[in-house]
């Protein structure tokens, strides 16, 4: 798999995801500065976590206007894959790659801890390393992760299997107590209509190595490698 990671001013999980990708693919991914206008030939573009442009105006709003994002949108429109993690999810939404919006957390707090996720759709190149219904532990670290969409959009996401991950309790039960940010329908990650763009608030790259205290995030990267083998 040929992977590339876009680096924006204020990205801070770019290195983490590059390490996770290198472990999965055996070679370092391309690091692409946001001022670039052309992407190399890639199977996967990752929009990494962080605080691009200091979250000015709205989280992800400025980065979505970066020169490289035209090429990223074209990459997605060509059916190639894009993974947006945390700030990358916010950027993907602001760039129109995914529907809805990410609001300030309902509890107003910056939430930085491990959460449990239930795999809702394991039939995608991103999630085929899991089984549907698997409960995995992945960290979150965000202030604006409260997923919002109008009722029609939420119904479409549900009906079309486009909710990839939901927040849940350790036993897999969904519900308010397991939802760290007030997201509608406990949504932690969604797919676009075509299924080639995934955005999620939790950080699989932060638990993708035993040295980090867990490996529940690793199957996402190994599954992507298998998908593009």
């Amino acid at each position: 798999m040929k992977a590339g990671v876009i680096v924006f001013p204020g990205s801070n999980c770019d290195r983490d995801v590059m390490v996770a990708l290198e472990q999965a693919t055996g070679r370092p991914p391309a690091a692409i500065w946001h001022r670039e206008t052309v992407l190399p030939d890639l199977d996967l573009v990752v929009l990494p976590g962080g605080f691009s442009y200091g979250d000015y105006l709205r989280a992800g709003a400025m980065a979505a206007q970066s020169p490289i994002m035209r090429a990223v949108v074209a990459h997605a429109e060509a059916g190639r894959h894009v993974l947006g993690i945390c700030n990358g999810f916010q950027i993907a939404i602001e760039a129109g790659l995914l529907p809805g919006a990410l609001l300030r957390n309902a509890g107003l707090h910056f939430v930085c801890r491990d959460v449990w996720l239930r795999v809702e759709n394991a039939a995608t190149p991103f999630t085929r390393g899991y089984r549907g219904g698997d409960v995995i532990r992945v960290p979150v670290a965000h202030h604006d992760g409260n997923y919002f969409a109008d009722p029609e959009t939420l119904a479409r996401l549900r009906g079309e299997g486009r909710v990839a991950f939901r927040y849940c309790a350790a036993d897999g039960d969904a519900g308010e107590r397991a939802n760290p940010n007030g997201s509608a329908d406990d949504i932690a990650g969604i797919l676009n209509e075509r299924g080639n763009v995934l955005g999620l608030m939790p950080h699989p790259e932060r638990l993708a190595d035993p040295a980090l205290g867990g490996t529940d995030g690793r199957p996402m990267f190994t599954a992507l490698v298998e998908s593009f083998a």
Partner: protein
Amino acid sequence: MKARVHITLKDGVLDPQGKAIGHALGNLGFDGVNGVRQGKVIELDLAATDRGAAEGQVEQMCRRLLANTVIENYKIELID
């Protein structure tokens, strides 16, 4: 010409910051505040001198960057 853009969350979109401000006002003894919604104001200094052209330009700015119309409303005020 100057323009002032008022950006507010749409009705029905949760505004936890507005809610927290409302609680704080209650703690300060301000009774009778039924609700608080907070937003932002962006002031623009424009080269345009024609009101219609300025309004059209700011409208585009709002749609493309200043507001996220999934969750926000905007109101444009032109100041000569």
